């Protein structure tokens, strides 16, 4: 989920975007091969290429990563806290999805 919601809609036309009001980017970093990219934070940059360069300086000054993803914050669709029940409550009802739901006789091993 993006930490930073864009507070003002991006202007539709590329020309009328204010020179200094750079879009917000979410930064994801893979700390080492074998691990997934993880959200590290966000930053402002005029385009993806600059976002990548800035992310390198802001978030990986001490070998924190081997790979960086930058994603424009406005391109992320996030669930909202209000939907928590609708989205996640059903999972709590289905206790039979967990192995602990099933009794196992003491005599039976390796199950």
């Amino acid at each position, binding site marked *: 989920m993006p*930490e930073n*919601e864009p507070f003002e809609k991006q202007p539709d036309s590329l020309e009328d975007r204010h*020179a*200094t*009001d750079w879009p917000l980017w979410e930064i994801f970093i893979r700390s080492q091969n074998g691990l997934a990219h993880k959200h590290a934070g966000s*930053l402002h940059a*005029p*385009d993806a290429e600059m976002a990548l360069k800035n992310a390198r*300086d802001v978030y990986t000054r001490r070998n924190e990563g081997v790979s960086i993803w930058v994603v424009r914050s406005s391109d992320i669709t996030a669930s909202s*806290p209000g939907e928590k029940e609708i989205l996640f409550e059903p999972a709590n009802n289905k206790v039979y999805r967990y192995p602990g739901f099933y009794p196992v006789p003491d005599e039976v091993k390796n199950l």
Partner: protein
Amino acid sequence: MTPEEREFQQKIDAGIKVEPKDWMPEAYRKTLIRQISQHAHSEIVGQLPEGNWITRAPTLKRKAILLAKVQDEAGHGLYLYGAAETLGIRRDQMIEDLLAGKAKYSSVFNYPTLTWADMGAIGWLVDGAAIINQIPLCRCSYGPYARGMIRICKEENFHQRQGFDIMFTLTRGTPEQKAMAQDALNRWWWPAVMMHGPSDAESKHSAQSLQWKIKLFSNDELRQKFIDQIAPQAEYLGLTIPDPELKWNPERGHYDFGAIDWDEFHNVIRGNGPCNRDRLRTRKEAHEAGAWVREGAAAYARKRAIREAA
């Protein structure tokens, strides 16, 4: 308290973090915006006293270290501006407020850096005091702020160590170098002690902030901790802390210390410190001088996006 506010407080009491899109009281949001943005401004303005010595560092090694330290502070400012933005304030707004002199930053940065030993004293004392303020905030109730603080605290230890290392080297040097270290300690001690803010009796926002867990210890508790840590280190260095009343109190298990000159503190906050005007002017000039870079980068991005869309 409204039912929503009660639920919010219960969540905080239970140690559940507040995330950007969760409901929160307006006053919580406002207090945090003020706290985090002031903190961000302090990191950014805090680069200036040390930036003053980058070109005059005594060796290439010290220069590279100082440069890395100052770059970290820029990073700290950016993490914190990012955390504040999640609460609904635009970054440009925060920067405008700083440059217009409307926003506060830590008053310790309004003192001048007169000698190389000041680089030692700042790392050792100012970053040392900042660490004590910041470590508890890694557990604060607001998720993005806590995550930013964890990142910052990891980097601050390097800052304090390199400062101590400068002091150590000077105190083991010539009598002039040792005197320089003592002079820096004399000038930075009290401003560093004041970094934890007004005494508890005077501090206005403390009770509510403690309840919201955006402050975890009182100013006086943090200050005591700082003094208890630094006093033996100063002794090891063979330097004298400029407080005749500083003395170990075995009954309390803490150092006693002399009265703090709060008039000076308030005077510097009000804008009358030795460098207030200078710091803001430097910041403003840097911002204006960088305008063409920002405009150029934006123009390039626009042009490329249009070309790609065609």
